[in-house]
């Protein structure tokens, strides 16, 4: 039988195994790419999150036949495939991060480089948990690869949301000491100290609001935002629209765009899944003229958002394009002034893309995960809470955002500096209200709104307000359906039916 041992010893030749990988610095970097690639999954930023999962809440709604009666129009069921895809993509990313972290100390390599990889991985894992906990509530918290296939190692119960948040903060803080400054990286595609601090501010605000209500986190939020602001690396881009043209053209502006998802190419050839649908899903509808770039245009704004902008605010017509393309060649044709609900999201315009040809199915546009204006607004919001009213700095930061929106110089040292659009003399609530609105004016359609409404505890109120308006003024049935469908239970998504079936330690989310 001894001679048989050799004959029976067959080893896989066509795939790698963890046992024989993670041996070099290159291996770790390759694994880190794998962890990053989660962001480009169709279930996340490449496709579904772009106007197809109701994340835009009162800012805009979904108008897309393929999405009828799904989470896209708040017809949420526990079997919804987009919700499951979201869950699956994130947990696969978390597992990839866990396996990398478990093997990270194996290669002999430069310790600084190792620690940077550790920092990026810890942060990404924490960010994926943030995406889960903010949209599902209590979720299984898994920080190590499963040691065996036995049920106790793979059937993990839900961890209370506040504990998940604590873990997120802890990992992100650890990460903040390990990753480099953004100027060292030189672009927004990788995790930098600025990105970690800025996202930590976001985490703290989520914890401070519903449903965790840990108000002590406001101060921490302000501190983390402050670290970004005082780093000296960041400044608002003078042109609001240029921020988004930069994403379309693969140009980096690390002063404004702190962290973004890297999409690449037009979807042809070997890397179809490295390109995304930014501008295709959430662009200005054009289904005929390929030279402009095909866009389904699933995302349309609401009259509420439209009317939020003051006159002279350049952000309005960039955010909700006043035109669509008609015919081939596509002619920019303005909407009737009454057709507010028809306006497409205009932040992501394919016409600016440089990659050619502009194919119908995918786009190269990057997508922002953290912009500097968000950090400024987070500071202002936290500060308003901590000080029981806005401080001078809070005003300064929100007004920087506003000035840029109105096309005014931001910097007081600028000779044309102009404070005519500045906010002033607001009490704490008044400031909060303006801040909430300002977040929409500035950050509309950037996948932030629903979470903001939820943490402020005004999600259903806002949805029903828009519903009332849509019932009276919207010309599309789908605008009405979207806001009518939204209900109390929609503040979070249900745990997917699939997961409930397999993991008996999970309990269904109340209400589903």
């Amino acid at each position: 039988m001894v001679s048989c041992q050799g004959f029976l010893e067959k080893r896989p030749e066509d795939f790698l195994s963890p046992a024989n990988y993670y041996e070099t610095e290159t291996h770790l970097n390759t694994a880190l790419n794998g962890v990053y690639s989660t962001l480009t999954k169709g279930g996340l930023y490449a496709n579904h999150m772009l106007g197809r999962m109701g994340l835009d809440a009162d800012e805009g709604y979904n108008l897309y036949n393929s999405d009828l009666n799904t989470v896209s129009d708040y017809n949420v069921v526990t079997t919804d495939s987009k919700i499951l895809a979201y869950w699956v993509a994130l947990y696969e990313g978390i597992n990839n991060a866990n396996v990398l972290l478990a093997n990270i100390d194996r290669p002999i390599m430069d310790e600084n480089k190792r620690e940077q990889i550790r920092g990026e991985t810890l942060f990404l894992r924490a960010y994926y948990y943030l995406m889960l906990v903010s949209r599902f509530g209590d979720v299984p918290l898994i920080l190590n690869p499963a040691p065996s296939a036995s049920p106790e190692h793979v059937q993990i119960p839900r961890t209370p949301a506040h504990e998940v948040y604590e873990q997120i903060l802890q990992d992100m803080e650890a990460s903040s000491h390990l990753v480099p400054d953004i100027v060292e990286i030189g672009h927004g595609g990788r995790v930098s100290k600025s990105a970690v601090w800025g996202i930590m501010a976001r985490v703290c605000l989520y914890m401070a609001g519903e449903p965790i209500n840990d108000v002590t986190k406001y101060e921490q939020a302000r501190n983390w935002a402050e670290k970004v602001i005082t780093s000296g690396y960041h400044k608002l881009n003078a042109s609001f629209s240029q921020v988004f043209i930069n994403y379309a053209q693969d140009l980096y502006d690390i002063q404004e765009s702190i962290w973004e998802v890297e999409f690449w190419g037009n979807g042809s050839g070997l890397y179809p899944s490295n390109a995304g649908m930014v501008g295709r899903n959430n662009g200005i509808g054009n289904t005929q003229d390929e030279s402009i770039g095909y866009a389904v245009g699933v995302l349309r704004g609401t009259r509420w958002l439209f009317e939020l902008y003051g006159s002279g605010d350049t952000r309005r017509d960039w955010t909700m394009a006043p035109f669509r393309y008609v015919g081939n060649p596509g002619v920019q044709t303005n909407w009737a002034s009454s057709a507010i609900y028809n306006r497409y999201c205009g932040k992501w315009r394919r016409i600016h893309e440089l990659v050619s040809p502009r194919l119908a199915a995918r786009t190269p546009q990057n997508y922002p995960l953290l912009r500097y204006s968000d950090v400024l607004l987070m500071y202002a919001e936290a500060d308003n809470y901590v000080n029981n009213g806005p401080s001078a700095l809070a005003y300064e930061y929100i007004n920087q955002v506003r000035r840029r929106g109105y096309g005014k110089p931001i910097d007081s040292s600028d000779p044309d500096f102009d404070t005519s659009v500045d906010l002033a003399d607001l009490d704490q609530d008044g400031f909060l209200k303006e801040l909430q609105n300002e977040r929409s004016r500035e950050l509309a359609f950037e996948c932030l709104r629903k979470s903001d409404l939820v943490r402020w505890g005004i999600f259903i109120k806002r949805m029903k307000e828009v519903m009332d308006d849509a019932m009276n003024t919207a010309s599309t049935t789908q605008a009405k359906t979207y806001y009518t469908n939204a209900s109390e239970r929609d503040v979070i998504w249900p745990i997917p039916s699939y997961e409930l079936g397999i993991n008996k330690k999970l309990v269904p989310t109340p209400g589903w």
Partner: protein
Amino acid sequence: MHSIAILKIAAKVRFLPTLYPHLLRIMKLNVVILLFSCLTVSANGLAQKVTIEGRYLSIEKVIHSIEKQTGYVFFYDYSMLDKAKPVSVHIQGASLDVALKECFKDQPFTYERIGKTIVVKLKGSLAPETKEKENLMLREASEQEGIEVKGIISDIEGNKPLYGATVSVKNSTITVIADKNGKFTLKNVDRNATLLVSFIGYEIKEVPVNNQTNIQIQLKLAEEELEELVIGYGTVAKKDLTGSVGIVNVDDIKKAPVASFDQALAGRIAGVQVSSNDGQPGEGMNIVIRGGNSLTQDNSPLYVIDGFPIEDPFNEAINMNDIASINVLKDASSTAIYGSRGANGVVIIETKQGKAGKATVSYDGFVGLLHVNNRMEMMDPYEFVKYQLEFSPESMTTFYLTNPGRELEDYRGVKGIDWQDLLLRVASTQSHSLSLSGGSAQTRFSVSGSIFDQEGVIRNSGYQRYQARTSLNHTFNKKVKIGTNLNYSRDLNYGRMASSIEGNNQSSSALMYQTWGYRPVTVAGDDADLIDEPFDEETGDPYRINPVLSVDNEIRKRHRSNVIAKGFIDYEIIKGLTLNIRGGINYRMIKDEAFYNSRTGRGYPSPNNLRGINGSLDQQEMLDWVNENTLKYKTRFGRYHSFDALVGFTLQERNSSRFGYDAVQVPNEELGLSGMDDGTAGAIRSNIGGNSLVSYLNRINYNYRSKYLVTATFRADGSSKFSRANRWGYFPSGAVAWRFSREDFMKDVPFISEGKLRASYGMTGNNRIGDFDRFPGLAMPYSAYYSNQNSTPLVGIIVNSFGNQDLKWESTEQIDFGLDLGLMKNRINLEVDVYRKNTNDLLLRANVPRSSGFQYIYKNIGRVRNEGIEFTLNTVNVKTKKFSWESNFNIAFNRNSVLALAEGEEHILSRVSWSGDYNNSFLYLTEIGGAAAVFYGYEWDGVYRYEDFEDGQLKPDIPTNGNDRDIIQPGDIRYKDMNGDGTVNEEDMVSIGRTLPVHIGGFNNNFHYKGFSLNVFFQWSYGNNIFNANRLLLEGNSVHRQQLNQFKSYIDRWSPENPDSDMFRTRGGGPRGRYSSRTVEDGSFLRLKTVSLAYSMPKRVVDVLKVNMLDVYMSAQNLFTWTNYSGMDPEVSVRNSPLTPGFDYSAYPRARTVTVGLRTNF
């Protein structure tokens, strides 16, 4: 060329019996042959036609004349000829029967044809002097000592000398062998001695000498002895069988006009469930023996083709006409010799070898037509438009009414497009098979070839096969025999896979869905546009692909080549001890080609089509080799103890590879596949795998007088699929059998002609997992790449499989009790088997929570039991000279139950992939105590009625259907709230129907009347349900797709005008992605599976054509099906696996086949 045989016989007892068996007994009782002349009459080449003319001919002369002309031999007592009358006849070219009738009409004799013999006897009682004569002779003979006995040994018909038969004198050493004329001479034999006469294949006979010096001995064919069954690593006489083995009547299955034997196997053997997923041409069959052991792994049996074990053969590679026998080993004692791979049963196929003698050419061919006679009834244009108006009142009113300026009534009576008629066709099939075989006593050969061509009933689909085979056997000398066998086949299966779906479009990419759901009417009123355009331009919906055009333009081909080459050498080392060395290779190649131009669903330039016009090529190769070395020893102790033993050592290895690439955005579509190089490179695939198996085996048989039989086997297997610690599996078995019919006391029970009790127990295994499933895997798909600073994406690696080094053999223990009973001289044969199989350590591809980062992990968990009872009844219902009716009936009951799952788990849920949100719902539940896979979902409860509402709101005590309470309306689907909490959610899902049949079986009938033979075969399945998923989309449109036609049955939906309907209102289907009992249907069916009518041309025609036989026949397959199932066909399982059976979605329709054919050999 022949001599006249005149037998003058004196019998001790009443002479010349009326029945053949009685005659035999008389022979045994010392028939004295007074006169004998050489009996080497051959019927070959002799005409059956008789011509006798003359007046006053002696009967003797007439007899001689008939013998001369026909080769028949008359058997009569000379003395009685005195009583004969002269014959005056005028017979020209009459049949033997007519001639005999004519010649004997006035004679005091009766006659009877027995084989090639015509026995003539006196009407009425015998003449008394016969007995006196005999006594006189006996007296004369007894006066001598040590007589010389001469004799001749022939078969019972007396026309075949048994060359090589052994004659020995009992209790002495004297033994002689009969010469080529069957003659022997024994000198100096005691006049009272007894001769023992034996010959292979014949019953041993004891013949007392009793002073005879010239003995004619006829040996009876040992019918049961002849039925040597090929089992694992050897053969066994059927009577000595200890295990449970199903024998396929190969002649019967050949009557089915199908491409391969497995397609004709359903219902033939008790306990062997054979089904196909749907009617797709060229797709394989699912064969499950005695219930599935594994839950997620393949349950198909091991195939052993001419001794070569193959787990997944191309059954289509074997020409049905080359098959000599198919035996199905069912119990553990039979299968344990195949150890690790025997747990699912073993199908043993032997192909034909050449026979010594004149070379024979055979031809069998048929041509025929296939068609589908049923259709799903769809809504007509009026009903369709009416439904659309309800579905989207605003947009559809504009679309169908306002814009064209019409009323709904205008659509009434409009003839819609029947898309089913456009897609389906009457297809043709043909098959031709030609063989040449023959050889000498030393060397035998066989060469054959076949062509099979079958169009599918869906346009542009079908199956073709070319196959050739040679076999050569040579006997060097008494000790050494060699043989080779080479089979080559090449087949092609082409056309759209009707039930398959592609990633993004999901359910809407399935062919039958597209066909059923396509609009029957346009607004423009020009049907031709809709028929000719690649997609529905009027609606502007790029997902609505014209299925007929698409099918016509698609290229999807699967080419397969298969070479099986085998050789063996047998060496008899010493008497009884034989070494057998066998080797073989099995090389298989699969080449998949696909090309989708701009008029196909996958190549149409739509915004969701990332690939544009695209093509792909994939090539897989598998090379298996096997080497088996066995030593057999066979011996007898004394007269009654027979013993044989087998030891063996085998090696088997497989190497496989798969390479493929895609080309996308192909610019010149007219070039087809050859234009792929102008396109952009797409995905590239490469895989290499392999596994190996080392085995030791042995078996011991002990047989006492064929009365008590014992078998024990043991096999050890080592497989490369398992880690070193878990590599070896050990599989013992044992069986005993008692042929109680050979006991003395059974002599008093004359109606039982054969009786045997069997019992067996054993362990078998299963290693059906991937080559490297135990290794955790990392992968570097392009989707794991990530761009850095807008660089070309950089390689990324992700974890893609968990692996599990602890994986080990799955083992099945089986106990079987069997009873074989032959009644009324084996005219009735009954076989009953009861069994219980317990499968432990199931190799389970277990779903795991997605939060683990994995979808499934391989584990050994749980225990499954299959227990059942099988009955097989073979009867000869009528047997007369002209007419016979034989039937075979079998029925099998199997109960499958899960005894244990992983630690602490009470159930497993499983799902099928076919449509968006449904993919995330579970449709199957496997619970401890229940069967593997029952349908699982919501209990359908009709619809909400008006009385369930108050002020437009659902009453608080009425449960929801999972939708938000506020949006539920009258006419919405309703489900039962099982836990009574007012909300129907995952906690209310229950078992909603069994998937496994209660019993399955078949009923086969063969009728013969003169030259006609009729085969009628029924097959059934009873008690299983089918989930008809077509109805989810096409009877209620639960996915809310606009412009989608519906089944006609949905006309009866709930509406304010039709408030009593149980069928939910338009858009009232409740939350998407929920499976309910609404579409669980009874899948029982009885099918008239095969009918074949053949006519054998009479001798006169055959002779004129100078052939040995010529049959013409008509065969039909799937002629009628009786079922309550509302879909196209109840034999359906388009996502077939042990945990996901009985799912129907867009199945390829099953065709009815009618053929005419011809068989001959010369």
